[in-house]
């Protein structure tokens, strides 16, 4: 069964574009990445999914039900918004107890465990916390009820690198326990590490939905060449080469196609150093993100 089922979702705010014709299926138990630059429509998609806003057309369902007609399905959903705001004058523990009061489970034990993991002082007043610590409160409050679906919108902003690692370990362990994870981010590294499948969104439209491995393979290679003397500037003018940076003795480019063609070219020249790598997702995605791409 699909945990998240978004079908032909379109959302306009008046005349302003939110998302256009977005379709995503997330299967039970997977970690799904949702990647796009700021303003591409990631948060719009999530907010429609959670029933905060209504679709202009199409549908967005969780466990086969719409959040607006069946708010009960949110029993099993944990959500971390990109920016966290809480009520004035509450201590961390007050807020977490209030959050827990909405769920049928007893969350007390889990609150203490999570606070321990995330190194969060439950007695502090939320108003006094730094941005990063508020984010930690958000993470804990999104997980106290052991949700079967975890939705994360830009989860790591404000967290220091060490805490980011702790956070990803925590999410990975929740996933091992059976939780499905929907991770929205503009930071590709995060998604690359965690996700099995990704959807790329740009200007409100899904431009690619693929397995992570397929995306990385996709026959792209990052090639760096260093010559003994200056390289012939036209040597890499061939089909399949993109992002060519060519100057003096060195050249670097992305190559997609039969690798033998490059090797033949390289054989014609005296090479002092050569590296052929898997490209970063960043580089692969730039290909889609660039205006003409």
């Amino acid at each position, binding site marked *: 069964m699909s945990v998240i089922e978004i079908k032909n979702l379109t959302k306009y705010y008046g005349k302003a574009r939110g998302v256009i014709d977005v379709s995503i299926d997330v299967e039970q138990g997977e970690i799904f990445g949702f990647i796009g630059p700021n303003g591409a429509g990631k*948060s719009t998609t999530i907010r429609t999914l959670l029933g*905060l*806003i209504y679709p202009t057309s199409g549908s967005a369902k969780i466990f086969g039900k719409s959040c607006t007609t069946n708010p009960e399905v949110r029993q099993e959903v944990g959500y971390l918004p990109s920016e966290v705001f*809480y009520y004035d004058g509450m201590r961390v523990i007050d807020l977490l107890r209030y959050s827990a*009061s*909405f769920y049928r489970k007893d969350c007390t034990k889990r609150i203490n465990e999570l606070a321990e993991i995330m190194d969060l002082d439950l007695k502090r007043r939320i108003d006094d916390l730094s941005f990063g610590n508020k984010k930690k409160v958000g993470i804990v409050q999104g997980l106290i009820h052991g949700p079967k679906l975890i939705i994360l919108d830009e989860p790591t902003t404000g967290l220091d690198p060490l805490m980011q690692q702790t956070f990803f370990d925590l999410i990975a362990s929740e996933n091992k326990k059976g939780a499905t994870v929907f991770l929205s981010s503009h930071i590709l590294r995060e998604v690359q590490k965690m996700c099995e499948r990704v959807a790329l969104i740009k200007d409100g439209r899904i431009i690619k939905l693929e397995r992570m491995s397929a995306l990385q393979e996709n026959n792209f290679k990052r090639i760096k060449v260093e010559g003994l003397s200056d390289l012939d500037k036209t040597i890499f003018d061939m089909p399949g080469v993109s992002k060519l940076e060519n100057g003096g003795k060195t050249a670097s480019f992305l190559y997609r196609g039969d690798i033998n063609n490059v090797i033949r070219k390289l054989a014609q020249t005296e090479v002092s150093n050569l590296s052929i790598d898997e490209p970063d997702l960043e580089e692969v995605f730039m290909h889609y993100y660039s205006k003409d791409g």
Partner: protein
Amino acid sequence: MNIVLRELKANARALVIWSVCMFLCVISGMYKFTAYTSATATGPSINDLLKTMPTSIKALFGFASFDMATMSGYLALLFIYVELVAAIHAALLGAGIIAKEESDKTTEYLMVKPVSRTAIITSKLVAALLNVIVINVVTLVSFLVVVPLYSKGGNASGEILTMILSMFIVQLIFLSLGTVLAAYMRNPKASGSVATGILVTAYFVARITDMSDKLRFLNLISPFKYFDLGRIVAGHGLNLGIVLLSLALVAAFTALTYIFYQKRDLNI
């Protein structure tokens, strides 16, 4: 239930402040009663002065139709202001309690919990209603305690009860006006100002219609005029028909609050 408690807690401090204000409003108002009634060695009573004032001026301050020298007449004048304060409280409370999730940006926190928007509105309305009842009871008790201190014989508690009952209905009207505005408006933050704007307009309409009988039809748009204080002072109680119509208005505003809030995209 958890949301009701949360809202009661969040509004507790404001409720104490408003209650104290209400009590001070009543006691300071009553304190002046002596000045209205008794002529002193240095001059005539205010009531004597008032008789020389043009009707339109008197209307503007609200004492066109009452005899200030009697306790119930004076109470009716004071009540106009007390009711205004209670109405402002109700309107601001109604608008605020619905709009606060959006103005404090806690929408994304609360609205992803497994509760329906309808349940959230119900909880908030219950909390708001309890607040309004507290203000109402505080006002009633203030009057019942303070008035006998100044009243020379005669018991006005019947009139006081009727006035406070009519005030409760006016409170409900403005409370539901506040909630419906906050539920409907694109920018719920502004609903408090709009609700107070409407309230002040209604108040001045109520004063202006005192000036001339030709303007009486305008009373329809001013809840402050739904219950005739002259009638209450004369001991005739409330007009049942008007009570029912007012409650129908409250019911309509409340129903619309639910409908608008359910349909709307929430601001985040």
